[in-house]
């Protein structure tokens, strides 16, 4: 019996998103990922005595943008607070964050699971600074002889987005996260490189007996950075909690961590050991007053969001599935739209984008942004098919060459002599040669065996290395044989 027959899951997610600014939240250092250790640091972000923070306005711009895209209310009065705790990756031993007056509150987004739409509440979104990165000689900081700290990431701006505990299944959680990341990607609030840790999830989950309304005791599993690990971690953690409850025990309220290798969650600290962060207003920064005109200015820069875009694609006659795939990333949808502005048949374009184009990207392990083929080049290829310059079959090979060389379709066709033979006189000669060489087939056709014409077409294509215009071949054959 699955636990879901007995229990209902209640889940809320905290998502930490690195905002796509050029410089850090309180100083001018670059936010670029990687780089030699401790080279993207200055007096301010390394927390030297006497330094002061200056808020990067672009961080506020992006936070407002995300807040609006998530249907949230942007606070007119917001402030920063200090979250005090000791850890060597935190140069000041406090994190400048927002506590009781976050920049955004009361948002939501809509997910679709098994065809059912559901609105997931977003309690709040607040700005804060990221910490540095520790590297240990052993497994943990306490069991290592040596630990090293890299402060390059210290002070990279984060937006922490906290959902309501509205999620009731793992599928809903994953749908929520996918939708959230899509919105962040569309608004270009973040570069959303999950593999580089630019989006991280903390999962709060509890179980309660089905049909009851009191919340069960929850655990929080921190720092997951892929949808797959969220899914696996939740499968493990819900199963674990169900076993605890089935045995008549109580779930311990605690913070846990996901061990990807072992596929289990491990206890980090219990509620009793939880930090007292001693939040208080950051005295080195002034409160943030956000004029409504500022919000409206940002609202005007909001792009078409994934849901609106899916609906537009469906109105073009695309299936829900196709519209979903095309809008799965802003880069792909932008590629599609740009090609569409040049080549109007959305269905044919969809087939090529979702078929050959995505196949080539996948085979080359590249993203749409890295594509050597531009949307205009793809549109031109499709136009050449429509004009009869090449067949669809030849076009697939041309696309591969385009991918490999970046050249335009027309150039490749010319260089390789791939143009279709649409010259009636030239084709007529070959047709006559083929008819003369295969009298038996001609006889069969005339005797009423329609299939024999297929053989003759094949022979003509063979003779022209596949470049004969198929409809012209058919027309000529029928004329000569009638």
């Amino acid at each position, binding site marked *: 019996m699955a636990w879901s027959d007995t229990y209902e899951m209640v889940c809320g997610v905290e998502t930490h998103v690195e905002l796509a600014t050029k410089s850090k939240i309180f100083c001018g250092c670059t936010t670029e990922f990687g780089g030699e250790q401790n080279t993207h640091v200055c*007096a301010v972000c*390394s*927390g*030297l*005595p*006497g*330094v*002061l*923070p*200056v*808020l990067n306005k672009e961080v506020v711009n992006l936070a407002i943008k995300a807040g609006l895209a998530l249907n949230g209310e942007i606070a007119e009065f917001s402030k920063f607070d*200090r979250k*005090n705790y*000791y850890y*060597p990756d935190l*140069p*000041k*031993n*406090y994190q400048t964050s927002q506590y009781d007056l976050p920049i955004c509150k009361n948002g939501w987004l809509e997910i679709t699971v098994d065809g059912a739409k559901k609105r997931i509440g977003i309690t709040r979104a607040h700005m804060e600074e990221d910490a540095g990165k520790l590297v240990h000689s052993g497994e943990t*900081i*306490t069991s290592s002889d040596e*630990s090293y*700290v890299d402060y390059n990431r210290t002070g990279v701006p984060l937006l922490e987005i906290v959902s309501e505990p509205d999620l009731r299944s793992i599928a809903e959680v994953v749908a929520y996260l996918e939708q959230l990341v899509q919105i962040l990607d569309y608004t270009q609030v973040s570069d959303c490189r999950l593999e580089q840790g630019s989006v991280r999830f903390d999962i709060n989950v509890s179980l309660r007996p089905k049909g009851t309304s009191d919340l069960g005791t929850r655990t929080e599993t921190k720092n997951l950075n892929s949808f797959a690990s969220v899914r696996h971690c939740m499968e493990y953690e819900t199963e674990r909690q169900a076993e605890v409850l089935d045995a008549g025990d109580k779930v311990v309220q605690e913070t846990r961590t996901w061990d990807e290798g072992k596929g289990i969650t491990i206890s980090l600290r219990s509620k009793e050991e939880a930090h*007292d962060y*001693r*939040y*208080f207003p950051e*005295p*080195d*920064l*002034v409160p943030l007053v956000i004029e409504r005109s500022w919000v409206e200015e940002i609202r005007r820069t909001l792009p078409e969001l994934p849901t609106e875009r899916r609906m537009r694609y469906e109105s073009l006659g695309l299936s829900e599935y196709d519209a979903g795939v095309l809008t799965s990333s802003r880069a792909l949808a932008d590629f599609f739209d740009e090609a569409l502005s040049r080549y109007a048949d959305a269905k044919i374009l969809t087939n090529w984008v979702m078929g050959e184009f995505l196949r080539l990207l996948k085979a080359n392990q590249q993203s749409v942004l890295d594509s050597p083929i531009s949307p205009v080049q793809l549109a031109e290829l499709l136009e050449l098919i429509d004009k009869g310059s090449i067949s669809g079959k030849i076009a697939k090979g041309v696309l591969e060459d385009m991918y490999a060389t970046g050249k335009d379709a027309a150039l490749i066709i010319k260089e390789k002599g791939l143009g279709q033979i649409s010259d009636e006189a030239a084709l007529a000669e070959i047709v006559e040669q083929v008819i003369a060489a295969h009298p038996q087939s001609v006889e069969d056709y005339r005797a009423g065996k329609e299939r024999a014409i297929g053989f003759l077409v094949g022979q003509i294509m063979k003779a022209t290395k596949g470049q004969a215009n198929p409809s012209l071949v058919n027309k000529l054959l029928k004329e000569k044989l009638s």
Partner: protein
Amino acid sequence: MDITAKTAGELHDLLVQKEITSTELTHAFLDRVRRLEGQVQAYVTVTDKSALKRAAEVDAKIARGEAIGTLEGIPMALKDNMCTEGIRTTCSSKMLEEFVPPYSAEVAIRLQEAGAILLGKLNMDEFAMGSSTENSRFFPTHNPWDLERVPGGSSGGAAASVAAAEAVYALGSDTGGSIRQPAAFCGVVGMKPTYGAVSRYGLIAFASSLDQIGPLTKDVRDNALVMNAIAGHDRKDSTSVRFDKPDYTQFLGKNIKGLKIGIPREYFGEGIDSDVAKVIWDAVAALKDLGAEAEECSLPHTDYAMPAYYLIAPAECSSNLARYDGVRYGYRAEGDDLISMVRKTRAEGFGPEVKRRIMLGTYALSSGYYDAYYVKAQKVRTLIKQDFDQAFGTYDVLLSPTAPTVAFKFGEKSSNPLSMYLSDICTVPVNLAGIPGISIPAGFVGGLPVGLHLMGKAFDEGTLYQVAYAFEQHTGFHKVKPSTKEVAAHGLE
């Protein structure tokens, strides 16, 4: 001619007239520092080589016939909590004994650009926590008026250096009275500017919402000149304010006829020495002679200022000083693991007063106590600010003693933190309200200087200078120099 006794204003004229060179001047001060430091102990670090190098540059400029700024070529010193690139900045703490900042505080940069000659870094109570400079990790600074007595604190080194003419002027910092109280004890002029008037960038923080840098000088004119150089918006400090910075010297010499002075009776309560109070009432009489109108008034929430201050300042300090953990810079103790290393570093690196305040502040911010302590203290702060706002509806300036007593003896209060804290009772409310306050020499009790404390409206330092200058010119107390034989023996008249 003893050039070390002169003010910046006088020295500027001598430099321009080529009566002296900056190099001669700098040598004169370095000599005096060498001779007097055994008794006064104002300096933590003396930067003689770089000072002479800078002086030679200024002299070359004068020799080329170029014009020089008012403070150019004039020797000064900084309290050792203002970062100076390449020069160790200790906060008089073991924690930062070896700390050499890779950058300079904004005030240091502004003075450097004004051509100031930095003689060195001045002693202080550790991390600016204290009122006597006895909390220095290195040594106590002695009051030039009586070497058995404290110079006040926490900017004790700054006040003593100016009083003993070991620098023409100095910058101090004031969180609850740390410029004004030592200025009073040492008989010099000390200004705590409006919060936000002077950049805090590079000032090693004690309590961020209260800290402010200001000048300690021999007279009011010098004070206004230094303010001209250091005040004004700085984009590196988010709490610094964009305001129309006046030329502060324009207020000097304006008469004070009809100017309204309020005397809050709460500042003359229990603990105020009656002789000190008498000096202050004499000062009131002098101001009336000059045409000012003075009357008693009330700031009803004054009693709550000390308790509120001793919650807010420690709360901020507990967070500001968390970064001293031995991981990145400063003192590091050996430990078996990370936690023991951090614990031992902080146990060994901080002195007892700093630890006391970190503990107070940590407690005040703790879950379950935050509302009762920190939040309530912030409400009190608002009430105190409202008291001042209301009073300034009627008065141009408020007046009180700077400190309840004259300079006390070493050890007299160091074993009783509460009695030490009370020496800031007249100055703390000004920091809570964020307004400016100045202490000027107002007379003597038993041969020791008494400071007159004038409080002004936010960004109205000008009126404070106006009243202070009128009083100074009328009374001349600033001309009386320390007469202890140790100090006087070395050339001061």
